[in-house]
């Protein structure tokens, strides 16, 4: 299963990005292989509609769970339609910490 966390930087020690569509990077955690890769968000600098574009990017990367602070209306609609589960998380933590918190308590979709 792929779990995605928006990130400010290239490593999992970076702070979580408090935006979704304009997040600088996305971290993709693979729960099966216990590995992670961080990719540049190709839509971060787009002129508009970046929420649905980022959702599409997540679909392409087979994401099933997104840990995010808040979402715009269009992004929310696209993510719901795509079947990606969104877990709300205060962005005041590192990417790794956000992932660890979810892993410790996956049922807690606070």
């Amino acid at each position: 299963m792929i779990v995605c966390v928006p990130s400010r930087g290239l490593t999992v020690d970076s702070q979580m990005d408090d935006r979704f569509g304009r997040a600088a990077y996305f971290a993709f955690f693979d729960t099966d292989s216990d590995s992670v890769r961080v990719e540049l968000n190709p839509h971060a600098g787009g002129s508009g509609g970046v929420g649905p574009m980022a959702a599409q990017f997540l679909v392409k990367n087979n994401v099933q769970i997104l840990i995010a602070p808040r979402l715009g209306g269009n992004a929310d609609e696209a993510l719901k339609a795509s079947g990606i589960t969104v877990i709300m998380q205060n962005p005041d933590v590192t990417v790794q910490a956000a992932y660890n918190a979810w892993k410790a308590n996956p049922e807690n979709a606070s």
Partner: protein
Amino acid sequence: MQIVIASGKGGTGKTTVSSNLGYVMSQSGPITLADCDVEEPNLGIFFPCVPETHPVHVIIPKVHESQCMHCGACGEFCRFGALTVLKDRVLFFPQLCHSCGGCFRVCPHEALEENPAYVGEVQTCHLSDSLTLVSGKLKEGDVRTTAVIRRVREMTGTDPLVLLDSPPGTACPFIETVDDVSLCVLVTEPTPFGLHDLSVAVNVLEVLHIPAAVVINRSEGNDELIEEYCATRGLPVLMKIPLDFPLLTAQNNGDLISRMDPAWFERFKELGEKILAYAGGAS
């Protein structure tokens, strides 16, 4: 010849200038007044009439799921995020669509159908033998402003003399209004805000290679701020409109000062002559 009355800053007197100028210039020849402030058109207040209405549509895609293979080509192409291709369906966000038509071209499966979407209307009124009013009106709640402005410009494109009342600001609606005109007259006020937004508009017009001229409104005699800027940028100041109580009263009553007061008629007539001379020389 197409001439725009614009401002950058809102509320500086674009409509005061364009309504009076349109009325006065129509007394000596045919002129079309075009209200391109389609989010809040108000020229019609000064020229009441029963308009002819022409609907404005844009083309948006409709997805035929039976033919769609969810290959993602349209979603990859759309830089506005209007099409989101998921594994089993395509989401379309109409308010993000710019009607560029690109998705129809990139779809390899002919799964997209061109569908019209209503975005507003253009109202035309023949007020007299020499004065025509054309007003764009965006559908309430819609954001596709430039589509309605474009239609106003298409419908007035071959008229001999058109005075376009611009929306405020200097973003897409302003650029759609000033594109390819002979002259843009910028109405400003002698305040730091007026100067700031004037300079933004002047910079945009410079990039677009459109000649600019300035009218100072609400002048109380201390216009150095604007005058010094205009001198530096080589912009002619075509008129100064004093802060005048009868003018404001006329305007607030939906009347035109130039229709009521011969002295004001002459002032706007002189402005019209200067504009035509400057636009003719500059273009």
